[in-house]
């Protein structure tokens, strides 16, 4: 009887296994890259690398995917993922808007508002659903060993480079300079206006869920894992959304405090792609984008001195470590994707990259960091990317991607 009970308990709480090879490799990579950054750059870069690693773990263990959250709302009429994102934006807004305007030397994620932003974010939204992830989603799934997402990442990089060649033309189309909400509403006013905006979106999300299901699942408010204890959940996942929200908000605020600018991801892809082209003999300075001060110096110098690149390396290794601790490395690639699914990764990656460059970033750099900086462009980005995502969701069945 006791034995039978023990077996039943074992079935419901299977043994805690980690993938030692993946965990060891990720830790070795962390030590190697972290050591290089320490030796060759400055201690604050090591701190940013470590923050990137923690963010990668949080994204993986929290399964914090912007793409799936949006799709779940549209297809399954479930809004927990979307509400978790709104909570994250609200919390970051409360922390980072006052930071940005109380300390000198900090620069927010603001960007021009115009044709480039609208077209770019719309294309990015389509790409999210076809590629299978946004900027952060692509990176953390690649770190967790997803083969299809490696294809998405490669074409994401190609897309950003093409986008960088075209961005000057797009900037010449109708548009105007960045609109920081703080300039017109003040710090408190900007925060309140943003919280009201996020509240309205949350109300709309709740309305959709309640209409479809009669009630709302408040998964985004859970504090404890329902399957394991705190320690095991912390190490091997899956984290409740609240944990991921707190870590992501703290990570972005620390990034701002340490580097002087909020978290961003996709500009690093630009630099990696442009460096690859230069390595095969292409003179990137023939393109106007690469003559601008920041891109030019980022292209010329080491990736180990480039903040988004270093944080991305940390994110990749953090996701790898988390996947190893969860014993799920490469789990998503057990069933080999069909040719059309790879085609979706190619098309989606190109749209993601091109869209990210025209739209001044991805869900992290433009949306998350943009709202945390109280910039109008982030709200326009949100609306246009969501509209694009609706089209992307409709296109998924053609590429044999499940909805």
């Amino acid at each position, binding site marked *: 009887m006791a034995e039978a009970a023990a077996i039943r308990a074992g079935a419901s709480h299977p043994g805690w296994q980690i*993938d030692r*090879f*993946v965990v060891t*490799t990720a830790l070795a*990579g962390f030590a*190697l*890259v972290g050591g*290089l950054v320490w030796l*060759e*750059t*400055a201690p604050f*870069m090591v701190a940013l690398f470590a923050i990137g690693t923690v963010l990668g773990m949080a994204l993986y263990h929290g399964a914090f995917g912007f793409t799936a959250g949006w799709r779940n709302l549209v297809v399954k009429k479930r809004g927990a993922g979307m509400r978790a994102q709104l909570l994250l934006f609200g919390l970051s807004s409360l922390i980072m808007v006052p930071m940005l305007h109380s300390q000198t030397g900090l*620069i927010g*994620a*603001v*960007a*021009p508002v*115009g044709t480039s932003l609208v077209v770019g974010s719309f294309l990015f939204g389509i790409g999210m659903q076809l590629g299978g992830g946004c900027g952060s989603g692509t990176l953390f799934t690649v770190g967790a*060993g997803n083969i299809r997402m490696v294809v998405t990442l490669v074409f994401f990089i190609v897309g950003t480079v093409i986008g*960088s060649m075209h*961005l000057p033309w797009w*900037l*010449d189309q109708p*548009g*105007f*300079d*960045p609109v920081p909400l703080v300039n017109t509403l003040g710090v408190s006013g900007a925060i309140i206006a943003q919280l009201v905006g996020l509240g309205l979106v949350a109300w709309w999300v709740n309305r959709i869920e309640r209409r479809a299901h009669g009630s709302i699942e408040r998964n985004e408010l859970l504090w404890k894992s329902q399957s394991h204890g705190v320690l095991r959940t912390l190490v091997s996942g899956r984290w409740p959304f609240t944990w991921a929200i707190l870590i992501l908000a703290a990570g972005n605020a620390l990034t701002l405090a340490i*580097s*002087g*600018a909020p978290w*961003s991801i996709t*500009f690093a892809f*630009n630099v990696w792609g442009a*460096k690859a082209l230069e390595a095969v003999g292409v003179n990137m300075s023939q393109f106007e*984008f690469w003559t*601008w*001060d*920041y*891109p030019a*110096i*980022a292209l*010329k*110098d*080491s*990736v*180990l*001195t*480039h*903040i988004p690149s270093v944080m991305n*390396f940390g994110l990749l290794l953090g996701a790898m470590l988390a996947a190893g601790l969860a014993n799920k*490395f*490469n*789990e998503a*690639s*057990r069933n080999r994707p069909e040719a059309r699914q790879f085609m979706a990764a190619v098309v989606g990656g190109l749209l993601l990259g091109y869209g990210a*460059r025209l739209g*001044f*970033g991805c869900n992290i*750099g433009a949306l998350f*960091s943009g709202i945390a900086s109280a910039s109008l462009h982030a709200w326009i980005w949100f609306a246009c990317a969501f509209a694009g995502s609706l089209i992307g969701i409709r296109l998924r069945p053609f590429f044999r991607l499940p909805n």
Partner: protein
Amino acid sequence: MQRAYSRTRILLALGVILVLIMADHLNSPTFAFNSGQGNVQTALMQRDESACAPCGAPCPSTRD
């Protein structure tokens, strides 16, 4: 349970990435600076306060 990946491929992929990072770094101004060469501009503090976007794009109002 059978592993879903090849250890060799993982190590190979990470090794290639590391080699690319090192090749890039060894040809960079920062490495030259660290090796004692002066008069090079490094990118350690890269924020461009005059730019209008995180990618360094200029403001539309400044474009002719």
